[in-house]
């Protein structure tokens, strides 16, 4: 049985050649739920709309349900209830039609450690039904693309973390999918390799491929066209990075002091301070409109016995945006239904907080 990609002559440009008006959304989900056991709602009634060509970033703390959501969309895991349409096909009933259109990279390295780079690619090319006459050329191109040509005969287990991730990505690209589902592809990868990985994603984005990526890194969220924040199985908000930032009415101050932890405590205790988080040796304080001004912050921290070197206004970035929006969402959730034991702190994920 032929697969669509067997007929596709062009390389990774398939989505762009389709007429604009009839394109189904890349992902459309409603009421999507997955329950582990009888009462663990890993994903709880999620609705989603991802247009084709987007780089859709899914951020949230560990255990938020990001992986479960992605696995359902990638047809690896069946939803308990609700449904999602990937390129117009239901994940419940039409998984076989979805598989040729998508690439999926799980959080865990999912290639054979004892197979070489080339053997892994060859194996998945066979599995994916890449036309035999094209396999060699395509593998060569992907090796080139991911800078792995020199390592093609090395067993996957002996690759560095960054190279492993690039190989895994190459495998997902073998059959020229229209959507990529990437589950924390750069977790545990060094910063240089992370940047390189995102350079590749940017290239794919330019080629018209939809990228759906879960990430714990806020700087990576900034590179997405749309960012959704997920917590406790639900998507709390989703918007473009700029749109999200605009939602923050607060002002950001950065305090340089002799004792950042004491300063964080002092500033955080002030009324009108939404969030005070450590950021290196700085304390970043989000202040609401009626909150303290620069000199009031300085005074409050000084009176706690901390020497304040400088207080200045900072730029609201994704990190600060999430700190604010997560705080607000949590406050709304608490006022709606008290939930004392679930206290995920998104700031922990950013690597900036205590």
């Amino acid at each position: 049985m032929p697969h669509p990609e067997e007929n596709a002559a062009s390389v990774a440009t398939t989505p762009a050649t389709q007429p604009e008006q009839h394109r189904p959304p890349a992902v459309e989900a409603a009421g999507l739920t997955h329950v582990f056991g009888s009462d663990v709602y890993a994903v709880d009634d999620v609705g989603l709309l991802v247009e084709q060509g987007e780089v859709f970033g899914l951020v949230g703390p560990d255990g938020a349900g990001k992986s479960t959501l992605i696995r359902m969309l990638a047809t690896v895991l069946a939803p308990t209830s609700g449904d999602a349409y990937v390129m117009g096909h239901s994940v419940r009933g039409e998984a076989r039609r979805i598989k040729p259109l998508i690439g999926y990279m799980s959080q865990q390295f999912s290639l054979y450690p004892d197979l070489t780079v080339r053997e892994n690619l060859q194996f998945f090319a066979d599995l994916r039904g890449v036309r035999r006459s094209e396999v060699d050329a395509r593998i060569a191109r992907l090796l080139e693309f991911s800078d792995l040509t020199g390592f093609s005969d090395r067993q996957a287990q002996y690759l560095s973390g960054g190279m492993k991730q690039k190989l895994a990505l190459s495998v997902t690209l073998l059959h020229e999918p229209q959507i990529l589902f990437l589950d924390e592809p750069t977790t545990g990868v060094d910063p240089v390799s992370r940047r390189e990985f995102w350079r590749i994603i940017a290239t794919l984005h330019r080629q018209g491929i939809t990228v759906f990526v879960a990430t714990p890194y806020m700087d990576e969220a900034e590179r997405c066209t749309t960012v959704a924040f997920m917590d406790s199985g639900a998507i709390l908000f989703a918007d473009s990075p700029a749109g999200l930032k605009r939602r923050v009415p607060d002002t950001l101050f950065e305090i340089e002091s002799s004792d950042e932890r004491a300063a964080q405590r002092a500033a955080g205790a002030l009324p009108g301070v939404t969030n005070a988080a450590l950021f290196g040796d700085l304390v970043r304080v989000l202040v609401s409109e009626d909150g303290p001004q620069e000199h009031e912050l300085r005074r409050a921290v000084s009176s706690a016995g901390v020497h304040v070197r400088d207080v200045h206004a900072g730029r609201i970035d994704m990190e600060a945006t999430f700190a604010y929006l997560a705080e607000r969402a949590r406050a709304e959730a608490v006022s709606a239904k008290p939930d004392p034991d679930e206290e995920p702190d998104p700031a922990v994920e950013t690597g900036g907080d205590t």
Partner: protein
Amino acid sequence: MRAAFRRVEAIARKELIHIRRDPRMLITVLVMPVAQLLLFAYAISFDVSDVPTVLLDADMTAASREYLASYEQSDFFDVVGRVDSPAEIDDVFDRSEARIAVWVAPGFARALERGEDGKVSVLIDGSEPNSAQLGQTYALALNQQLDREIAVEWVRAKGQDPEAMGGIGANVRTWYNPERRSADFLVPGLMVVIIMIVTIQQTAVTLVKERDQGTFEQVVVSPIRRSELMVGKVLPWMAIAFVDIIAITLIAITLFGIPLRGDVFTLGVGALFFVLGCLSIGLMISARASSAEVANLTGLMVGFLPGFMLSGFAFPLNSIPRFLQVISYLFPGRYMVTITRSVFLKGASIDVLWPQVAALALYATVGLALATVLYARRAR
């Protein structure tokens, strides 16, 4: 369809690479079976030999010395020493230095001289009931034989006709006697048990490993069907199992001198379905096991215990409890043991063995289907 063949081929080729790159696995699947064959064939042999034995000569005559000397020449008895009193026999038994004591009572020579039976006691340490029983039977048989020899020599020395003495006919049952016979009985059955252990255990791990490695998810997002995955997983193990079977057969013929009297075709067809049946058991375990360790252990248990106990390899199936007999039908071993023994020893072929072959074919079909279903359900 071509795409499906290609996917099956890709899985099979990949499995072979795994096996090739893993020296431990290679040893397990290719060296171990042969080692097991040699080990088991010698260790589980029903032939008893070199049983540590002490001698007590209370008669101290030429006749008693001659009699006891023949114990020292026997392969069955390993004379580790001589004792001077019955109390010492107790000691050596307690210290497990010997398991048999041969005690020639006073008056042995005189009794023989008078044409009566010489009084000899063979004491057996019964703390190991199994070998004790074997030992007892053996000792009795041997004693009779020796007795007769002595009697015969005695009579000859007296110039009488041995036949006129009536003699004591040595009636040693062939079961326990020549080493060759025992191997004939054991090796064809052993082959079945070994193949069962290797195939079940190895396939039990294979699917779990994919899950543990996370490779399973990558395979699942490809267009491969579960059945294709199963077939691809089974093929390389089929090949390996046949390499093992051929190796074991050659060793059986050359080293143990087992005759291959029946036709190879029947053996081959039987083995094909038998191996498929075993592989399906392994895949079922793999589909349900929660971890590689669990799969490995379960595989070993399921391969080993029914292989040994319920295949008729060691114990005749009509001598085991009724409900175990019923359970034995649920494992492919018993059918295959019948096939190998009949083909090797009795020269049987498919015209008599078709019920067993058919049972194995059915077993393989149902087993593989069941494994696929179980696997699919687990993955969902």
